[in-house]
């Protein structure tokens, strides 16, 4: 079984007022972001903001994205992002109260591997659109490929169910059948949209295919990321 999620980045209302669909007016603002660490899922937003030319300083060492949201709510951080389920559960209320302004989603993948609007948040622009509108940000080339590679392994194929390698086939089949039954429930779409957002669920061979796209990152993209982490954050990977 494999399923995905998306992510939404948002700003505080003050800086959000300067956001016009491009990050041009945000380049002189200093942002602070509660981060779990540059080598975690936060690699996707950190790189995206950097590509937009924004000056985002991460405060490392928080325990989860919930702590990051709390930091944003307390006004200690002024930029944040959440995966779709936490955005629906926690951050949407802030947006509705005017305490936060959504900036962009990371988007979703269509069947051909293109980045399109996130089906859960069709009204929010994707990073790709914002990047295109921003001076100096390019949606092709080495940097973009690296970002896209890590986005794909981080979000559209994020939730995977694994069984131990030596599990007998009949057990695997039972699990596959069970997942199929769950998806076939009449109220599945409704419940899952409320919890995790509207994302496809792959079962069986499709899940295997999804896994492969998630773990195949080109050597160029890898080299770029390793270099960037070492330069900006002093992190070395072995």
């Amino acid at each position, binding site marked *: 079984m494999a399923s995905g999620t998306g992510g939404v980045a948002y700003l505080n209302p003050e800086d959000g007022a300067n956001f016009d669909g491009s990050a041009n007016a945000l380049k002189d603002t*200093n942002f*602070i972001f*509660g981060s779990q*660490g540059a*080598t975690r899922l936060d690699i996707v937003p950190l790189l995206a903001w950097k590509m937009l030319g924004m000056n985002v*300083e991460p*405060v*490392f*060492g*928080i*325990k*989860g994205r*919930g*702590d990051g*949201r*709390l*930091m944003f*709510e*307390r*006004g*200690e*951080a002024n930029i944040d992002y959440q995966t779709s389920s*936490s955005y629906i*559960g*926690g951050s949407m*209320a802030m947006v509705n109260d005017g305490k936060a302004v959504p900036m962009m989603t990371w988007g979703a993948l269509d069947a051909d591997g293109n980045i399109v609007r996130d089906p859960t948040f069709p009204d929010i622009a994707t990073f790709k659109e914002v990047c295109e509108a921003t001076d100096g940000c390019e949606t092709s080339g080495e940097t973009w490929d690296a970002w896209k590679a890590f986005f794909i392994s981080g979000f559209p194929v994020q939730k995977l169910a694994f069984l131990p390698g030596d599990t007998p086939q009949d057990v695997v089949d039972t699990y596959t059948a069970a997942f199929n039954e769950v998806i076939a429930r009449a*109220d599945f779409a*409704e*419940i899952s949209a*409320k*919890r995790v957002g509207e994302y496809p669920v792959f079962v069986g061979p499709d899940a295997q295919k999804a896994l492969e796209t998630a773990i195949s990152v080109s050597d160029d993209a890898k080299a770029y990321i390793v270099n960037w982490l070492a330069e900006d*954050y*002093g*992190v070395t990977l072995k």
Partner: protein
Amino acid sequence: MEIFANALPALGEAWGLILQPMVLGYLVLGVVMGLAVGVFPGLGGIAGLSLLLPFMFGMDPILGLALMIGMVAVVPTSDTFASVLMGIPGSSASQATVLDGFPMAKNGQAARALSAAFASSLFGGLVGAAFLTVFILVARPIVLEFGLPEMLMVTILGLSMVAVLAGRFALKGLAAAGLGLMIGTIGEADAGGSLRMASYDIPYLTDGLKLVIVGLGIFAIPEIVSLLRQDRSIAKGAELGGGWLDGVRDWFANIWLSVRCSIIGVVVGIIPGLGGSVVDWIAYGHSVQTTKDKSNFGKGEVRGVIGPESSNNAKEGGGLVPTLLFGIPGSGSMAIFIGVVALLGSGEIEVGPAMLKDNLDITYSIVWLLALANVVGTILCIALSGGIARMTTIRFTYLAPFLFMLISFAAFQSGQNFEDLLALFVIGLIGIFLRRFDWSRPAFLIGFVLSNPVEQFTNQAFQIASFRFRKSFEEGIDYIFSPIVIILIIITVVSVVLGLRQAKNIMAEGDVQSGTKRAPMVFLLIIAGYLLVALINANMIPDYNMTDKIIPMVIGSFALGCCLILLVQMIRRPERDAIFADKEVAGEDADAPYGLWSTLAWFGSLIVGTFFVGFIIALLGFLITFLRVRAGAGWGKTLILTACGIAFMCLMAGVLNRDFPPGLLQHYVPLPWPLGGE
């Protein structure tokens, strides 16, 4: 104000939901299951909750909540048994209870200590719920006032309790706390991922040491070994004085202390990110500071039991606030709790800001189910306490092998690694020597527990503060010195000054005689040596990872400084000075019929045996040999007791679906459970 107008009807609806026979029945069921799991040291709510998880989907929400809350609520109550009767801190919530609860048991006052603790727990839980009923409505903005500088100050307030618990030599207490802090930094740093005193060649160390293991090693092992050496019962003379009614009377006589500590518990519990680990120490410190005659603390003062126990159940209620209002779990069991609430409501109940608007009745049901579960759990515990207290009159040699069995199993549950047992043994050794040379063990534990929050909050607050200072000086100052921070600083300074003045009266290890220079100095040099190595190790972290380096460097230098001053003092003072406190010179340990090393070797043999043949087979050999050789029991008694021990272990592990540590044998020959693993 609108929200208050909605509150009363919601409260009424909540009681309507709770007061149904079915709901109450499920609550009692949950409490009984929680009790069965909770008396096990180290197996808390997480183990129990995961057991319930499969039954939750599609269950009526209120019934599921009752079952689950019954189980969670009773854990901080039931782990008091282990703290008082055996000196084992069952969970982080009952560390401070050990300090006076266990000495009371040694004085034959076990039943009194237990019932005083339970009465306080019950009362604390109710005060907490009452406070929350009103407070939860206005909690959100107040919780948001607690930024990083504020959390750092609360952590420092917790750390300042070291002053009260430092013992006769403040420097020794400070060095012990520093050592605890340093041991807490072992492993991968949160911020930059640098390794401190660890290497990827030993993956076990990169995760750092777990609280269960350090708690058991520092408190339980030294006490078990000491009692076993003396070959007597826990209660001196095997007599029980003071029934459970006395304990309830003690609590009633100190009811205002109980009220104050309950409020401390709720308020500190509410702050997300701190968890419960500081609460009981702050409550203990408060109990000491408000008691006129402090001479009995550490030797069996009932107020030292009432304070922490009042706060730790109230804390559970406080902990609901970040969980329910912000969707941020304060602990592992709360994380499962959030997951289960999602399953229960089939999407109707959403933990988070909406809880107050859309589900206030459910929120109130949770608050009061928690309080009610406390009541049921406490009554059951008090009813049991008279009987269980009799355990303290049994000859300890018959209890010890089973305690070794239990703590080994508990330690293994923390990481499912053989190294857990080794770590337990090593920390146990440190604990034994801290106890022997009268270095404050509570100070060490406070240091360890608060190591991670101190480091994390310092780094993050510093980073954000410097960001604000770059904007403007005023903004920076406003951020660091908010009114809450200033109030906390004042409280901390007052409690340190008062604490240092009182510390000399509080002898957690009793009156320890002094002896020659050699042994205490060797121990000091070993500690100083470790600190020095840790400092050099931290210094090797490159400067761009300053966040991973600064705290170990500062704390390590400070602790090493304390050690050096102590060393100078030791060289200059004559032998028999109080600085050379040594339990092996005179007193219970010195007069014990058995030596330290031969006694410790029994525990060591269980671990070595486990390494070769796995836990259950090693345990079989250990129990038989121990009971025959050390306890001198006949074959009949030996076999019956061994069979009971093994059967009990298998039953608990089987029900909870746990594995036992496998050994080399299991590596080569696959064996069925419980002999093998998988």
